[in-house]
């Protein structure tokens, strides 16, 4: 392999080719945030519930996912889910789009940390807030949605942002089961070039990811600041 100088022009050339596939990456991220938060909320609720069994199940699930490398779960879902559906549920999902398997795996993965974020945010809001709300005549549901949730959301924001950033970075693994997202497209471009300009392509991808993750971080910090109650100067 001969040594070839780095070509910054190619970096700019490859960016517009990669951009259309940003949509796939963002679909995975947003889809996972939605479904993962729902499952995470369920887990957090189960962990707090009076039923011993539910609490143990929820904690066990969170423990296992904490020890699970994303790529291993991705492979288990990719190979296991079609077989499971075929033999147990008797539905054939072998021809489902790969994004389906990616979404299922990352939802399972994302739910665990997000349930921890929700739990700690819920615990951070003083119990008296809820009691005060109920005592002035709000229903438990109203008290939760109008009093506790807005306060918990602000507390949860920084950790939520971190989890989303981690999710974005882990989401880059989706190409290993053949999803053509940004990284998948990058790999295709590189093999199309017979392995040339690999570094330039990867750097272009890194730049896009860097903008995304730094962007999410900045956005979270901005939201946190605008939603926090104004503090008196101390």
């Amino acid at each position, binding site marked *: 392999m001969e*040594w070839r100088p780095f070509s910054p022009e190619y970096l700019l050339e490859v960016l517009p080719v990669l951009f259309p596939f940003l949509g796939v990456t963002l679909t995975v991220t947003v889809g996972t945030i939605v479904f993962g938060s729902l499952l995470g909320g369920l887990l957090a609720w189960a962990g707090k519930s009076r039923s011993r069994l539910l609490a143990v199940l929820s904690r066990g699930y969170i423990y296992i996912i904490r020890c699970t*490398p994303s790529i291993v779960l991705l492979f*288990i879902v990719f190979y296991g889910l079609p077989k499971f559906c075929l033999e147990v549920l008797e539905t054939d999902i072998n021809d489902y789009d790969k994004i389906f398997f990616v979404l299922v795996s990352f939802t399972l993965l994302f739910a665990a940390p997000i349930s921890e974020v929700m739990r700690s945010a819920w615990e951070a809001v003083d119990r008296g807030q809820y009691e005060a709300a109920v005592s002035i005549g709000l229903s438990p549901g109203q008290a939760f949605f109008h009093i506790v949730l807005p306060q918990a959301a602000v507390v949860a924001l920084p950790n939520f942002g971190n989890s989303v*950033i981690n999710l974005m970075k882990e989401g*880059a693994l989706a*190409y*290993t089961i053949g999803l053509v997202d940004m*990284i998948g497209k990058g790999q295709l471009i590189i093999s199309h070039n017979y392995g040339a300009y690999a570094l330039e392509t990867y750097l272009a991808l890194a730049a896009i990811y*860097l903008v995304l*993750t730094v962007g999410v971080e900045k956005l979270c910090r901005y939201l946190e600041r605008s939603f926090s109650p104004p503090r008196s100067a101390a």
Partner: protein
Amino acid sequence: MELDYDFLATTFLLVLTAVPVTLKLTAVSLLFSAPFAFGIALLRRQAAGLLQRLAAAYVTFMRGTPMVLQILMIYSLLPSLLNALSQTLRLELDVFSLDPIWYAYAVFTLNTTALFSEVLRSGLGSVADGQLEAALCAGLTKPQAYIHIILPQAMTAAMPNICNLTVNLIKGTSLAFLMTVKDMTASAKVAASYGYNYIEAYMDVLAGYIIVCSIIQAIFYFAEQHVGRYRLSRGKQV
């Protein structure tokens, strides 16, 4: 759902034989990165200059890009870079027969350095400034003050984060198979490819990771108790 239980059992033993590779990757990366991470953490606590900005940019890059991308980048760059280096220096080094685990060490060390420096930085930040001043006033030199006064306190605060870092690093090493390193994931993948028993193989890998992570977390639990044994507030606060 029918699983091949014989295969599940034999592959589990096979996966267990690859556990040392995972532990090696984790331990070497942590040990190599620790001094650099500490250097970056100390550097970034000083007022902003060119060096500080470079360190910050490095940390942002490593934290802001996916690990896979870093692996792909270094695995495509480092071999030819080393080759060019050995050719210009006439080292007679056969770069392409180098054990790929060295590239894995390189990637994970570079990545861990950035994350570790953040952990240490927040740990150092948790120690009150007065501690250093008091130590210097008492006649200790700066290195003495750091070794005997600041670091023990910083480590107590940093321990839970170091545990997290280690667990994440262990999980991250599952990507080493992309660099053809024969770790748990790779050996299971090879075993599965003969009979297409991927589900069983990856369930074994999952079990392997859960065992390894559980042991590491247990070790860190005791390490935390050990490091925190001088904590004055113990027993006074809840």
